[in-house]
């Protein structure tokens, strides 16, 4: 009984892990196809200048 309980727990952990990885994988594959999500912007990127008048306390990160 105790053995079956342990096996059940291990199975649950494995299933949850697989489920998590599948979900992450699906999201990743989906997002890879969306070009705006890709981190690889090529060449020079115009930088929006920082507004020195902004409230630094609320934009600190």
């Amino acid at each position, binding site marked *: 009984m105790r053995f079956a309980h342990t096996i059940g727990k291990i199975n649950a952990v494995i299933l949850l892990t697989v489920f998590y990885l599948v979900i*992450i*994988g699906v*999201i*990743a*594959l989906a*997002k*890879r196809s969306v070009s705006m*999500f*890709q*981190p*690889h*912007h*090529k*060449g*020079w*990127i*115009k*930088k929006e*200048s*920082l507004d*020195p*008048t*902004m*409230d*630094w*306390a*609320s934009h*600190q*990160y």
Partner: protein
Amino acid sequence: MGNIAASTSKTILGLSFDYHDAAVAILKDGELVAAAQEERFTRKKHDEHFPTNAIDYCLKEAGLTIQDIDYVVFYEKPILKFDRLLETFVYTWPHGLKTFLKAIPVWMKSKLWVKQTIQKTLGYSGPILFSEHHLSHAASAFYPSGFEEAVVVTIDGVGEWETTTIGYGKGDDLTITESIHFPDSLGLLYSALTYYLGFKVNSAEYKVMGLAPYGDPEPYDSAMRKLIQLNPDGSYQLDQRYFAYTYGLTMTNKKFDRLFGAPPRQPESPLTQREKDIAASLQRITEEAVLGIVKHAYELHPSENLCLAGGVALNCVVNEKILKQSPFKRIFIQPAAGDAGGALGAALYMSHTVFNNPRSFEMKHTYLGPAFSDHEIKEALESQKIVCHKQDRDALIKTAARLIANNHVVGWFHGRMEFGPRALGNRSILADPRKKENWQRVNLKIKFRESFRPFAPSVLEDKSSDYFDNVCPSPFMLLTAQTKTKDIPAVTHVDNSARLQTINREQNPMYYNLIQTFGDITGCPLLINTSFNVRGEPIVCSPQDAIQCFLNTDMDDLFIGSYRVSKSENIHLIRPEDRERYLKTFNLD
């Protein structure tokens, strides 16, 4: 202006930590009072941990407590950096899982909680602000440059997203206008090849630069050009198929190995012509890339002045090419161009742009660290039972110059410690540049480092043109020049270049007088100047550090404060087992 900016800034503490080279800089009423890297206190090279010791020192130097600090400024934005980590993980899925799982606990445990760490560790309850990584670099270069207006270029591995930026500064204003983003990174390209050549990433890139003149760039030129595409507008792209840094625990991958025909060199294995050729090829393409970037920067913002920062700005060979081949007439390079300088830049940006404090200083030297009194030095010497002699300043300088002329290698410890990676005459090992054998002698018996590595000369600024071609002031040892003479073989690299430090009396009177006196004796106003440390050790900070380094190497004499220590009079203190233990204290860099 926001609620914080409306108040008047008095004291700002700039911090950088959590990646590498943790550092602190303190501005008091707009003046840079002190700056130091944590590694000097903890004796762990490139120490990235919270800089408790450096903060304690800076506060003490400024005569303040943490409660007197008006603003603390961190040099980058952790959330944006975390955003890059997440997006890169998603983009590289499933390859990056291992790296992701390794990185996430560190981020969740500490890197995301910078504000809380500062508050808790320092007991600080005032405002904490966050600059941006490359903005901090840019500010560290522009504000202390002395230029009224200048183009500012920053190039490093990666900040939050940016790896290269172009900006423009005028008066108190500084704006970044264009940037290149991760994973395209000139700094990471250099680091990837540093890894491939068997050296330590984020530490030994300068060794690759020193290795390059031994090689021929041609054999690996086509392979190198497959790694990076240089565009006519100065931008560039790395071919990510050859790199693993976006998803792996190494910098390069198997495809990279196939391109270069072999796996990465094992650290400490013998160097062959192959590694030298690859280094030469990398150095050449880096020079081309940086020249493209600065020329584009000039087109965007025509100016005669250029400011540089970021780790790539420590490549003095590139800097020399910029000076000779770009339209810029004057150049200022932040001496602490790596992340340590970010602490200074963050504080300066806040002071000038956010709080509108007028610019008030030009960085003419880097002596911003701790100094020690003769009393403290005497105590340190006595605690080790060291035989020493007290001399007045003039006598000390004459004795040191005479001994160096007699081919002694001396440790030179005076005044405030340097900020940044270079020892510039206050924590230096000095020797005679006229003797070629000193190149190997200092490398192998004193620094215990690779024999190929060159040495830099310190030369009197007003005499530099006698020894070097087209030389301009290089106070921070960040420019190279071609030597005109064969009289200084110990500081002349195989391509006839030298990475020189020019020095004038205003910057460091004592060091200037020493070189001048050596010149009076020998007719050669130059010295070999290398950092006071052994391989893998941070530059010495305290008298105790200097004494340990002196006793455990083949240095002949130590000049420390007003005291002269001779090895021959202290030979009874030297034990081989102590030396072995000492050298093992430091991880090889």
